[in-house]
């Protein structure tokens, strides 16, 4: 994985000093809260309902065991002994004191980590495929391109006061595991007919209150023009994105109102101009970054045989492992979705165990999934049983990846000052319901996502089943949505009808699941059945 050189370290250290200085000036009253707010946000510090929340960047979701140990230590030292892994492959701590923030950033800098641009109206942490560098189906490892863009976007002088936040995802497989087309910019590394690598740019996607799927504006940007093209995309947005209305300020609205064709024309004109400005790093820089992402030394001829005599282990293998490009290896997913648990939460103890297991079994590497689970990317099949046994003992052995229990949920009204309704208790009740009624297995692949308000941090638009919490005359109310997907078959979910109360939404999810079980044809997922039969049978069952 990528390691800092003296330059990267100097920049992160400078940022810590800058933030300490800013926090000090805030305490001295030289900065008003309005002036301080964007500065602390660009260091990941939010003011939540009960306390400050600090969001730490995990670039493209990759970290090593030393870094995971540091995250565990921070949770213990400055928070309540746990952290929350997020849908942007980051981690956030929910009970932070403002006066500790500088020290936490300094602790992070010691392990080549930071909270830079994890919030604010700037280019955010860049996300990627959690199986990058491991997946059997990828073209190349997408992370070197994400790292190149990470450096370009860090402390960008022109793009630090954008109309609104800006999220970029980079993938390099036709299978989209990063919700690429629901980003402000989604980049897919592709090969052209001449066999050269390049980048397809999708611009103007997003969730939030106005969900949109990004159109492809450029099918092939050569790799030695990647930064320049991104710069052109951002400049057109910075100049012309709406600033009169916060809710219309994302680039998706600009692309929609201007039209993708006109936006592309302006980007191309800006790009042509910028080619003469010399802002593209030399190809040697990309090659330097690539050396950090070379394959670890996989064992030749590692055995792919699995002893399936223990059915619990066999189920975990079937559900929680993913095909690897090296024979005899898999990527193993550690579910942070125990039945009745809080999706994405991990205690310091659990973080340390996951770190140690990564060191023992996965070449010292871990990944955070946007679905709020943890991946050990390179595990020998022969080691799976030992890994699973250790996870089981720590309560981390849930075999529920991609099932209805593998719920994405935002922090909701339990933590968030924007939320209208709680998300976590709904997620807990649904996982308990389906674990108890035994339908999880029969339902197969089913993505359920819950947001506690229309800002859609819980990706409800992209759930096969989505739940949106709203406020109905002071009472929490939950709308049900069906038919969304964040994957390569991307689509936006539609609302079924009137909402439900907290108990009612759990029943409604089960009702919708039952319609699928009744109507499905061979091999269909919930989403496939919904797409074939449409909303009507679900509505009939829910409201009929």
């Amino acid at each position, binding site marked *: 994985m990528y390691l800092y050189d003296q330059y990267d370290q100097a*920049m992160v250290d*400078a940022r810590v000093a800058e933030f300490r200085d800013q926090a000090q000036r805030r305490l001295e009253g030289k900065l008003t809260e309005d002036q301080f707010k964007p500065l602390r946000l660009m260091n990941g510090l939010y003011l939540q309902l009960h306390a400050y929340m600090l969001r730490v960047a995990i670039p493209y979701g990759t970290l090593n065991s030393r870094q995971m140990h540091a995250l565990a230590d921070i949770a213990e030292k400055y928070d309540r002994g746990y952290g929350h892994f997020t849908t942007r492959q980051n981690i956030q701590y929910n009970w932070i004191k403002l006066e500790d923030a500088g020290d936490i950033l300094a602790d992070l800098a010691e392990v080549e980590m930071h909270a830079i641009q994890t919030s604010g*109206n700037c280019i955010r942490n860049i996300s990627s495929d959690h199986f990058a560098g491991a997946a059997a189906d990828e073209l190349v490892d997408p992370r070197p391109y994400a790292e190149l863009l990470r450096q370009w976007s860090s*402390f960008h*002088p*022109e793009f630090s006061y954008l*109309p609104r936040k800006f999220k970029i995802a980079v993938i390099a497989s036709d299978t989209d595991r990063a919700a690429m087309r629901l980003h402000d910019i989604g980049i897919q590394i592709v090969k052209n007919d001449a066999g050269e690598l390049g980048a397809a740019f999708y611009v103007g996607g997003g969730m939030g209150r106005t969900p949109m799927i990004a159109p492809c504006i450029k099918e092939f940007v050569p790799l030695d023009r990647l930064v320049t093209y991104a710069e052109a995309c951002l400049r057109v947005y910075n100049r012309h994105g709406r600033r009169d209305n916060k809710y219309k300020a994302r680039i998706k609205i600009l692309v929609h109102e201007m039209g993708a064709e006109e936006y592309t024309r302006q980007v191309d004109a800006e790009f042509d101009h910028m080619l003469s*400005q*010399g802002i593209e790093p030399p190809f040697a820089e990309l090659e330097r970054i690539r050396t950090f992402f070379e394959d670890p030394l996989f064992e030749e001829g590692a055995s792919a045989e699995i002893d399936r005599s223990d059915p619990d282990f066999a189920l975990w293998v079937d559900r929680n492992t993913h095909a690897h490009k090296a024979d005899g290896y898999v990527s193993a997913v550690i579910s942070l979705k125990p039945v009745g648990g809080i999706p994405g939460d991990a205690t310091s103890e659990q973080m340390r165990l996951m770190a140690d297991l990564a060191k023992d079994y996965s070449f010292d590497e871990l990944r955070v999934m946007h679905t709020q689970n943890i991946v050990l990317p390179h595990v020998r099949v022969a080691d799976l049983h030992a890994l699973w046994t250790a996870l089981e003992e720590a309560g981390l052995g849930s075999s529920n990846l991609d099932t209805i229990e593998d719920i994405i949920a935002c922090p909701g009204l339990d933590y968030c000052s924007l939320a209208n309704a709680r998300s976590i208790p709904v997620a807990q009740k649904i996982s308990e319901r389906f674990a108890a009624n035994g339908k999880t297995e029969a339902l197969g692949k089913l993505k359920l996502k819950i947001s506690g308000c229309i800002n859609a941090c819980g990706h409800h638009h992209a759930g096969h089943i989505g739940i949106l919490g709203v406020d109905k005359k002071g009472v929490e109310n939950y709308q049900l949505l069906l038919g969304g997907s964040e994957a390569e078959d991307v689509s936006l979910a539609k609302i079924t009808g009137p909402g439900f109360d907290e108990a009612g939404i759990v029943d409604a999810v089960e009702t919708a699941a039952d319609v699928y079980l009744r109507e499905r044809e061979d091999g269909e997922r919930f989403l496939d059945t919904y797409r074939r039969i449409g909303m009507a049978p679900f509505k009939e069952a829910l409201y009929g």
Partner: protein
Amino acid sequence: MDNLSSENDTLIRYRDDEPVDHAAVTVDSFLDQSSASAVRVEPGDDARELLPHLERLSLVEVNFPAFGDGRGYSSAQILREAGYQGELRAVGDVLVDQVAYMRRCGFDAFDPDAPLNEADLETALSRWPEVYQGAADKRTPIWSKRHA
């Protein structure tokens, strides 16, 4: 640094030439009248409209009515990329925590609504030992140093 306290308490310039002695006009009036050599660019103005006239411009003020409106950074970059050599002055809600990025985008003068603390300004401008990107200030990016 040249503090012109006699005329303006808040003006900070990083240039050796004499400041323009008349007020800046709007972009529209500038395009209408050939005599003006100072213009003020508002966030919604298109800085590219000035490009055919750069030679007769000595001062471009870029207004920041609110510090969070970042359009002025692009206006500055565009002018410098086109070769504008005159004074580029950030005016309005210009705060000490924004000036380092403004310098990077080519601003060489500041006239903030509220005076900047001199020590804080020095600290801010010496904050970044390196830079990751090429920009109007022509500092050598990290990627260039790595492959020098």
